[in-house]
């Protein structure tokens, strides 16, 4: 039988399932998988502070993106704008309730839940309190992480704009910029953070026996 401390020395690559023994890294170092060269872990001492700042910014820009006009089109003087409310009005008007509910969850609720739970995890870790809540939130986050589709929504927006290019004049709204900002920040956050590291920080801050 192997103890937990010894087990913590191992890590399994999430892409090709190869078992590795961890080695200590220097500051800012990265460890790659020996078989498929995926990044498996790294050392970043300022991770919590940096990511917390990024998460707060992303949350604000996401709320801005949901609040204001994304794009406005103008066909021979007739104007129509795309906002979150006009989107749901149209879906309800055409009685597409299933698509509407999926859209509500994939674009609005899950991204907001992911970001806010990330905020609470990092904030609680920063003040080193509420170990049990952090654990529950981390488990919630690992179930939610597949279900955010903001990036896909943005690509769809670009495709729709290209389709409309010939017929209409398109004006970009405030939310369009906010959406781009959100996506870039989200990309930086996912590059910056990994679940493995979050759990490891959880273990070092709260110890193994918090519940």
């Amino acid at each position, binding site marked *: 039988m192997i103890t937990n401390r010894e087990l913590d020395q191992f890590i399994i690559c999430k892409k090709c399932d190869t078992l590795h023994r961890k080695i200590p890294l220097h500051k800012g170092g990265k460890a790659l998988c020996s078989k498929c060269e995926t990044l498996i872990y790294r050392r970043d001492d300022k991770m919590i502070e940096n990511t917390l700042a990024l998460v707060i910014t992303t949350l604000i820009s996401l709320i801005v993106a949901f609040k204001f006009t994304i794009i406005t089109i103008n066909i021979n003087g007739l104007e129509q704008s795309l906002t979150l409310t006009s989107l749901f009005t*149209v879906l309800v008007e055409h009685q597409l309730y299933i*698509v509407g509910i999926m859209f509500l969850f994939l674009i609005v609720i899950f991204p907001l839940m992911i970001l806010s739970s990330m905020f609470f995890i990092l904030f609680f870790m920063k003040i080193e309190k509420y170990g049990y809540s952090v654990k529950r939130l981390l*488990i919630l986050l690992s179930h939610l992480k597949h279900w955010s589709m903001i990036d896909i*929504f943005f690509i*769809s927006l670009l*495709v*729709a704009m290209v389709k409309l290019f010939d017929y209409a004049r398109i004006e970009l709204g405030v939310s369009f910029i906010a959406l781009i900002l959100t996506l870039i920040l989200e990309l930086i956050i996912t590059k910056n953070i990994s679940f493995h590291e979050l759990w490891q920080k959880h273990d070092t801050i709260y110890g193994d026996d918090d519940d």
Partner: protein
Amino acid sequence: MIKRDNFIRCHVCETVNYDNENNLLCRRCNSTLHQPAYISFHRTLAFLITAIILYIPANLYPILISKQLGVNTESTIIGGVIHLWEAGSYPIAIIILVASVFVPLLKFIFLIYLLIATKYNVNSSRVDKHKLFYITEAIGPWSMIDVFVVIILSVLIHFSGVQVFPGAGATSFALMVFFTMLSALSFDTKLIKKEFK
């Protein structure tokens, strides 16, 4: 003595667990590590069959209906791609074709292959199967592009004379993507390892 097969990775918190067939829960997050292999197998298969069934109406029913001066024109996914190709916007046609025709088909083929390969111990590299599963999980949500485009268009082209709105195909397509994602999520990567025992 370290043997590779004795270690499993918790799919929730990514920690390494020692696998002695008795510990049912992850040592860190208490999520289930072991469940009888057939549960995961049957669940994946059930979601996959649902998705394949939904793929048929998704392609047969119109995904986009445009109403111009009282006349309805309906277009399916393939019809939309052909229309875009003829209109000369090749990049968009290719994006839609790949995202809404090839990606779902690839997912079906990958998942069927993984299920057959783990059930009947097909002799191929374990690492390749893990990579295949990783790809299946990563490309999954991208088929939603077409549904989102239709929704965005139906919001923007919403005048009294001309209107565009999603048809029944959009609902079944969205559900199809949802079920393929569930199917991929319920596939247990430990099934891949089973063949070595």
